[in-house]
């Protein structure tokens, strides 16, 4: 019997180790697994490498993780936003490492990890300082840079509905990095708005098949 549903946010993030690489979904405030990130704050894991598109804003979720000095390194495409005070403060102080990756490459590197590939060549960034010192190959007359897979120990993502097999559907643009991160982590943890019965999700419309999901937890009103 397969049942990936867990009862509490604490159960959802149990076992995440110090030093883990954590993939966190979201683009701006859309699709961020806020409650899971706060559960990770409570859980206590430190020295994390966080892979996420933005570096948090204000005092919540990723920004709170950074403020609490739990993040050793962030891998992202756009750490700057109106309220990214904590990231900027620690970055200026040299207290957090930044690996800047073009957004499409960030997503594709996680996909490569999930797909069992050893890496790929992309034209994105090949002529820029982000490719300095990196392997360049001319393919079809165009410069490409080699990019390595980017796997996570854990992925924390947000979806809309899940069944007990962990099949997921999302809502509007909150989908963003979720389906890719789900494939790329050894442990994929999902917060959802609703649980549904097995068979309720349209088999033609499941976005993340349960094979990529380990734990689902419901947040918000039941």
């Amino acid at each position, binding site marked *: 019997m397969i049942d990936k549903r867990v009862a509490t946010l604490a159960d959802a993030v149990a076992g995440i180790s110090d030093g883990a690489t954590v993939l966190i979904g979201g683009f701006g405030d*859309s699709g961020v697994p806020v409650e899971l990130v706060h559960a990770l704050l409570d859980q206590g894991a430190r020295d994390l490498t966080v892979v996420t598109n933005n570096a948090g804003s204000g005092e919540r979720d990723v920004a709170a993780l950074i403020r609490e000095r739990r993040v050793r390194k962030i891998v992202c495409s756009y750490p*700057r936003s109106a309220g990214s005070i904590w990231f900027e403060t620690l970055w200026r102080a040299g207290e957090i490492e*930044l690996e800047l990756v073009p957004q499409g490459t960030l997503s594709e590197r996680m996909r490569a990890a999930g797909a069992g590939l050893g890496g790929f060549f992309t*034209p994105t960034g090949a002529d820029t*300082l982000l490719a300095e010192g990196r392997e360049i190959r001319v393919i079809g007359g165009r410069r490409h840079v080699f990019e390595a897979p980017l796997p996570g120990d854990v992925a924390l993502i947000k979806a809309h509905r899940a069944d007990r097999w962990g099949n997921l559907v999302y809502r509007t*643009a909150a*989908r963003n990095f979720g389906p890719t991160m789900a494939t790329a982590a050894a442990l994929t943890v999902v917060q959802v708005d609703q649980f549904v019965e097995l068979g309720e999700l349209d088999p033609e419309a499941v976005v993340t098949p349960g094979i990529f999901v380990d734990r689902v937890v419901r947040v918000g009103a039941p």
Partner: protein
Amino acid sequence: MITPLSDVALARRVAADIPDGSYVNLGIGLPTLVADVAGPDKEIVYHSENGILGMGPAPAPGTGDPELINAGKQPVTLLPGGCFFHHTDAFVMMRGGHIDVTVLGAFQVSERGDLANWMTDVDMHPPAVGGAMDLAVGARRVLVMTTHVTRDGRPKLLPACTYPLTAAAVVDRVYTDLAVLDVTPGGFLVREMAAGLTAGELQERTAARLSFAGDVGVLATA
């Protein structure tokens, strides 16, 4: 007397060059104006890097879905025929040559079409690249929309960029408040100029050496 184009007039000029039926990605900032002024006579499908095709205008205040945002993190709507997909697929569209037109802002453009729009040399903020590099290498047609000179009067159209590149040799056409210029094997070729501007005055405001088409048009100011 020189009459530089207003932002709206500039956006109208860019919109006029986008064919009916195009798939278009608008960069954040000034380029987003293009969607606001594009008339209903053309059906244009707007793409957003966070997984949306068929974006509609901003929702009425207070009615938006907080998860349904564009690349600039502003609330948007979805048109009939629009759909959602994940980030990796959004960048398949961008990098894979499926976007017909992208309109991007710029700090600098070189006469060979190099684009610098993500980092200056005096930046005190952490670097941030987002999806600009993917769009610049991947869109079939790369249009730049920018003021002709910086706020303190320095030229943006140069023999070579001095800021870090976003991508090399990708810009097809530049629209400024003073002129429309094609990037050609011979450098910048002026196609249209603002009313009252002479060729000499435009060259004074441009560090790259300009050529002029035989029939330079006059930019409409409204």
